[in-house]
């Protein structure tokens, strides 16, 4: 038998409250600018038209590269940002996605753009299984277990002759003229990035997302609140692996070769973490802003300082200074202070 509370005698108070809350909700809606990401997407979709007036392959490459990181950082954010489990092993899923779709391309000639969702699914299943084991610990232990996962995967792929071992394997290139050769991957990557951002938004505003947020704050409380924390965490791991795996699939064909020292690098994982933290962990726009900033900074410092060690120092310095002034990341800190520009409020 359960206890139900009737609308009490103070229901007029309740009504007034409800009106007040509706006002708050309307206000929150007004501060949100959904048109902005859509406009941005429209511009990116139209961007290749530039190819008619000149050679803008470099611009397309930069956008494609940024989009791949937007997708991966947003995917990472599901586990690292919402559920609070920082993983440094996500390049494994990048590699698994890349290799799975790449092998299908090499053996059967099916484009990775078609097989990307399947590659994502394979990464998700792997993420689910690994999550069952590693998500039993949290904090530093989890981070170390994720690095261990990456090292194991690296050794495995370095010695697995079927997929080319440490030498990797070359994938067939498409036969489009050089001006248009990037386009299929460009659109595929934009689509994956947009889909990922949309999916993280949906996840954050679902029961699942609310549960993950509870888990990140206090797992014992979340469990006693009736949340199946183990299932939620493992599903978060699987979802986040899915998006990273999909990105890896298209990235492999775009590069036209697969090699463990391209995919299974801790640098890729570290980038995802840095982007999410700089932009704002657990926010929707955070990983997007972080990815754009870090790619832009890298390019800027490489262009001005050359590909020396100093360019890395430059990016690092900007990050450090950024985090001193924005401890919750750009989006997180601005939102907390109520100073987030409307165009960046995607939550």
């Amino acid at each position, binding site marked *: 038998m359960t206890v139900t509370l009737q609308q009490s005698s103070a229901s007029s108070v*309740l009504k007034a409250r409800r009106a007040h*809350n509706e006002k*708050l909700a309307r206000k929150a809606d007004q501060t949100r600018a959904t048109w902005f990401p859509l406009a941005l997407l429209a511009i990116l979709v139209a961007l290749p038209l530039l190819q008619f007036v000149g050679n803008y392959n470099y611009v397309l490459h930069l956008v494609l590269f940024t989009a791949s990181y937007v997708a991966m950082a947003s995917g990472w954010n599901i586990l690292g940002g919402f559920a609070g489990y920082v993983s440094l092993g996500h390049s494994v899923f990048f590699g698994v996605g890349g290799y799975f779709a790449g092998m299908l391309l090499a053996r059967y000639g099916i484009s990775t753009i078609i097989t990307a969702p399947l590659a994502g699914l394979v990464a998700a299943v792997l993420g689910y299984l690994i999550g069952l084991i590693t998500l039993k610990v949290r904090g530093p232990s989890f981070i170390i277990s994720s690095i261990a996962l990456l090292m194991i995967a690296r050794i495995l792929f370095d010695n697995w002759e079927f997929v080319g071992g440490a030498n990797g394997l070359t994938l067939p290139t498409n036969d489009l003229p050089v001006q248009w050769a990037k386009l299929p991957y460009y659109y595929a990557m934009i689509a994956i990035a947009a889909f990922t951002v949309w999916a993280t938004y949906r996840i954050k505003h679902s*029961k699942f997302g*609310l*549960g993950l*947020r*509870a888990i990140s704050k206090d797992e014992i409380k*979340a469990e006693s609140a009736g949340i199946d*924390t183990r299932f939620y965490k493992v599903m978060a791991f699987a979802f986040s692996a899915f998006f990273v795996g999909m990105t890896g699939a298209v990235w492999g064909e775009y590069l036209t070769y697969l090699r463990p020292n391209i995919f299974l690098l801790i640098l890729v994982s570290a980038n995802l973490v840095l982007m999410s933290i700089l932009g704002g962990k657990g926010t929707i726009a955070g990983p997007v802003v972080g990815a754009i900033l870090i790619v832009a900074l890298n390019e800027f410092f490489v262009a001005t300082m050359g590909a020396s060690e100093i360019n890395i120092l430059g990016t690092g310095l900007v990050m450090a200074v950024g985090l001193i002034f924005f401890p919750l990341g750009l989006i997180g800190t601005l939102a907390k202070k109520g100073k987030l520009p409307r165009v960046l409020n995607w939550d």
Partner: protein
Amino acid sequence: MLEVKNLCKHYGGIKAVDGATFTVERGSITALIGPNGAGKTTAFNCISRTVTPTSGEVWLDGVRIDQLRPHKITSKGLSRTFQISRNLSDMTVIENVIVQSRVDGIRGLLRPAMSAEEKDKAMTILDFLGITRIAYEDGHNLSYGQKKLMDLAALLMSDPKIILLDEPAGGVNPSLMEEIIGHIRALNEKGLTVLIVEHNMDLIMRLSHKVVVMAQGRVICEGPPEVVRKDPHVLDAYLGGVLEEEAA
């Protein structure tokens, strides 16, 4: 309704709970009292499975629950609060409450975090506790007393049959304590069974129908409050004496 049989929890050589047996009758307010270190909170944690008992059984409405995971126990209708209010900071009060509402199946996971009905239900609960004004306040901006009330609100969201309250009036001012007593009594009158751990004797004596006294991990006495307060074992335990069998 709730039966605890021979419950044990050992931490190495320390027997925090050492064969506790007691029952909580349907519709009652039962208090679990005892000096510090008697094992009350550990017993609580074992019942809600926040810690795994070493041995013993816990039955809820004829279903054995001591092998279920905590969220399953919650869905069977047993909800608890924590001694030190564990709230989810960075989430608003209403989110803290709604997070406790039941989610069924995979499709349930994907529905919106807060439906209109859930918001209405949460607001009704917050209104019952008189804290609607803080509904959209951030969890960590609350005072200690408000957190206690929010915990209580969150419990009610999961439609429990029995609630376990760990020191609901610990560290709150007397007027708020009166308020909390009033709420617990009102909920009990609506048919909710309550098991409560509390140090405040005044509250226990006024509120509870039955008192279970624990000392050194064991139940040393149980009965109506007026009987228990005169029991020599209880006086002994509270005044720092040793149990007879230990002295022997």
